[in-house]
């Protein structure tokens, strides 16, 4: 018992112990380099393609806003969950956070997005509204008739022999104008996002 007290006193009188006890510094609080924070602008030019907004899984997290002459995405903290999908989806590398862009370049990964146009034939009344409203159709066939029939094969969908046919859903840009004008809610646009590796576009 007595010995152990002496042992302790001896131990506490050691210079290193006193120094550590009085002057030990707390390690600084640093985020590790792999930490994926909020996406920040890299300074590259945004083309207003809205891929970032379309891939974002969170409502109200990102908006592409006009700043004078140029467009720039804005991240809303408190909504954004820092998933990093907008960084991967942007074709212009406008956004970056952590090591997302670096990893993407190293692994050669990309996100490819396409849209599926699905029509419910049981409720569709073949009015042709969607065909006429679609901006891609208008570009492909300026002479599109008001009933949605067309002699042109390049349109996304058209009324053909009294039915609505979807020919080229790979051309759809996902604007969902057709969903808005359909009186019966029969047409639905689904976004299909695929992660790819090694595919050069």
């Amino acid at each position: 018992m007595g010995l152990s007290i002496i042992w302790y006193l001896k131990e506490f009188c050691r210079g290193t112990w006193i120094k550590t006890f009085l002057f030990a510094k707390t390690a600084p609080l640093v985020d590790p380099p792999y930490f994926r924070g909020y996406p920040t602008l890299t300074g590259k030019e945004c083309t207003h393609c809205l891929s970032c907004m379309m891939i974002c899984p969170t409502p109200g997290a990102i908006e592409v806003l006009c700043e004078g002459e140029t467009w720039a995405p804005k991240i809303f903290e408190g909504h954004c969950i820092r998933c990093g999908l907008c960084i991967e989806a942007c074709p212009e590398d406008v956004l970056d956070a952590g090591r997302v862009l670096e990893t993407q370049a190293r692994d050669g990964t990309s996100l490819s997005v396409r849209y599926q146009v699905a029509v419910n034939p049981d409720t569709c009344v073949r009015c042709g509204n969607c065909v006429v409203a679609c901006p891609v159709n208008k570009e492909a066939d300026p002479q599109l008739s008001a009933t949605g029939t067309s002699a042109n094969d390049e349109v996304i969908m058209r009324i053909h022999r009294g039915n609505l046919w979807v020919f080229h859903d790979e051309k759809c840009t996902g604007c969902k104008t057709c969903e808005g004008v359909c009186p019966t809610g029969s047409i639905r646009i689904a976004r299909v996002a695929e992660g790819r590796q090694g595919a050069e576009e």
Partner: protein
Amino acid sequence: MTGMLQKMKNAVRSRSIHVTYVDTGSCNGCDIEVLACLSPRYDLEQYGIYVHNNPREADVLLVLGCCTPQWEDKLKGLWEKIPEPKVAIAIGNCPLSGCVFNREGSYVNPPASKHIPIAASVPGCPPRPTEIIRAILSLAPTVFKDYEEKRE
């Protein structure tokens, strides 16, 4: 002129911050990040932050979660139990926007600042332990500094 006693109080308060946390309906992601602050890797106590499970012992309240209706009055009660000086920090997206729970028809009532005064927020889903510690460390001493003098 700041009195000697006040100076001492400031020094002690900036090195001994007592924290309690309440989860008002989160997914537990932020809770785990708050607990990670206690782990050896971040070791919250080396910064002089102590975690209590009793609001009466705390100065700082960390609010997590999106404030479900059952929590509305209880959060207020809990806030009143904390002795002055006190401060509340919202941790995560939930107390700010409701995050994933803020959907049509869900029983949540964010933001938390509707129910109690929130002094700062640490957004993120979830925020990193470093961000949480940094928020507590930067906020608490400034809020508690010269508290007695400011009150007069």
